[in-house]
């Protein structure tokens, strides 16, 4: 095997430009495949972390009547737990409401949250530092869409416990920036105590956010969803993304492998005299097949080295500086950061290398098998077989 590597190395270096063209194409494939996989990994990690930090905590204890995807469930989807049942939990109450920015009506989810909480990244401490009647915090996307800034007042209309409409001005005390669109667009956050007072739903919650210490127990009328349960839709989306990008990079890989296959087929035909010489000098046919297979595989090893030379600084730069995306990417409806930091883990790089090297070995071996059936006498004469 060592000999095959030595000879293959010499043959490839000796082949000059043809080698470097194949290596170049394969290295480019390497870089693009790793980049896309790193991009998805980075997005995945970042989105999961952001969702946990901004919205999910360790999980949600959700009222059975409440479905975040069904606005009609908001009205009755709430309940209350005793103080003992609320250990390691804090409540969030969701109500439907309307905002009237510049005379237009905008339906929003009015969410009450405890200003004392420090589990989520939401800047709820701003409630306590404000002495306005109804302090509210909203996300940057929401603020931009309704053209509002910190300190502005805006009319809010909601239904009280009896179903009667009530209205008051809320003061925007803080505009926060987040990648988690589900806590931003169409969301208005106010102190839960104020929302209880406004709606008469004292101590009620649509769901409770759990911290890491929370031990789920069976509570009638409530259903505990772990963060993984809550992220299941996101996981499905990532799977779909991975499949769709897989097609793209398999196509790239196929082009690169086709170049190797083509070179191998040509080599077996053009280098018949050389093959005959190898056999005459004492190589077995299987050794020659091995040599040609290693030669083809070595393209991928060279490509790996060339890919590292160009790719590592690029990947390092992208990993540390990130890639910025315009805000409209957040309209996809899932967490998409304005600056995405691709994640190029060792496992990702090693699996990509393995994929490319094994694929290159297979496409190199297929044409080389023909050598095993060659007549060495005809090969020495360079006659087509």
């Amino acid at each position: 095997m060592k000999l095959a590597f030595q000879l293959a190395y010499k043959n490839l270096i000796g082949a000059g430009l043809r080698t470097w063209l194949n290596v170049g194409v394969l290295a480019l494939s390497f870089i693009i495949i790793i980049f896309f996989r790193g991009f998805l990994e980075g997005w995945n990690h970042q989105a999961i972390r952001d969702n946990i930090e901004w919205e999910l905590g360790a999980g949600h204890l959700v009222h059975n009547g409440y479905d975040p995807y069904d606005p009609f469930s908001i009205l009755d989807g709430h309940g209350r737990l005793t103080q003992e049942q609320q250990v390691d939990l804090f409540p969030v109450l969701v109500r439907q409401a309307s905002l009237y920015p510049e005379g237009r009506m905008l339906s929003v989810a009015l969410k009450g949250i405890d200003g004392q909480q420090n589990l989520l990244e939401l800047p709820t401490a701003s409630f306590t530092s404000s002495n306005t009647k109804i302090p509210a915090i909203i996300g940057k996307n929401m603020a931009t869409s309704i053209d509002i800034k910190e300190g502005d007042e805006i009319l809010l209309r909601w239904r009280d416990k009896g179903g009667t409409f009530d209205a008051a001005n809320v003061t925007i005390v803080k505009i926060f920036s987040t990648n988690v669109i589900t806590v931003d667009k169409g969301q208005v956050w106010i102190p839960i105590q104020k929302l209880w007072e406004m709606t008469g739903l004292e101590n009620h919650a649509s769901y409770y956010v759990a911290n890491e210490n929370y031990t789920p127990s069976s509570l009638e009328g409530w259903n505990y969803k772990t963060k993984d349960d809550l992220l299941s839709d996101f996981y499905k989306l990532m799977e779909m993304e991975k499949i769709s990008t897989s097609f793209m990079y398999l196509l790239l890989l196929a082009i690169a492998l086709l170049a190797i296959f083509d070179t191998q087929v040509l080599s077996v035909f053009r280098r018949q005299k050389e093959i005959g010489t190898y056999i005459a000098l004492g190589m077995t046919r299987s050794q020659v097949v091995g040599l040609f297979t290693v030669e083809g595989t070595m393209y991928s090893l060279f490509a790996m080295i060339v890919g590292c030379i160009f790719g590592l600084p690029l990947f390092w730069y992208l990993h540390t500086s990130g890639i910025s995306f315009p805000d409209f990417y957040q309209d996809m409806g899932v967490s998409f950061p304005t600056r995405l930091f691709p994640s190029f883990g060792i496992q990702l790089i090693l699996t990509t290398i393995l994929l490319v090297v094994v694929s290159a070995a297979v496409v190199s071996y297929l044409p080389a098998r023909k050598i095993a059936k060659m007549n060495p006498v005809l090969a020495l004469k360079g006659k087509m077989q």
Partner: protein
Amino acid sequence: MNQETIIKINNLTKRFPVGEGEFTALKNINLEFFKGEFSGLVGPSGSGKTTLLNIIGSLDSPTEGEAIVLGKQISKLSHKESALLRNKHIGFIFQVYNLLPVYTVFENVEFALLLQNIPSEKRKKMVNDALEWVGLSSMANKKPDKLSGGEGQRVAIARAMVKNPEIIIADEPSANLDAANAHAILKTMKQMNKELGTTFIFSTHDEKVMGYLDRIIHLRDGMVEEDEIINVNHAP
């Protein structure tokens, strides 16, 4: 004289498929070659010279009869065994040199030793000795495309002799060389035959080569026409 038989060919026939029929390249050949012979197969094109050399070199096998080389029956050898026979005991010199184009002169000569897993230091010494023998020490780092025809053939000789084989098979070695170069390489081979006792078997129709041979086997239409002993020291 009591000489050691190195190659024995008994009733050897070789047929090749041609279209739907067959072409008989060798017919009922019976020959013996002895250790240290400097012999040649001579005859016109199509007489079966190269076919017989290929069988002796275990690159091909007989259709009928047997060829026993260094005690091994060629037709019964596996691919691996015949490769081993070629690698350790038989050197080849081809008409068009068949040097490996991407290797240097040194690497071309070294190739057979690499296959034998000879340690690096010993290998280097053997290659340098072989190159010195053929007078190409100064060209060790050149690629084959930078060599003249004579130099290329001398590299091929060095490659064949470096592993010190019992037999060297030379197929029309002077066909692409001018007279001066042909004489130069023949002298080298003759010297090698005398000093190292290597058995040489040529295939040729070149008068210059014939002048150096101790034994000339005339082939015609796949049959031995005449087995001519020139140097009685190697008489059967």
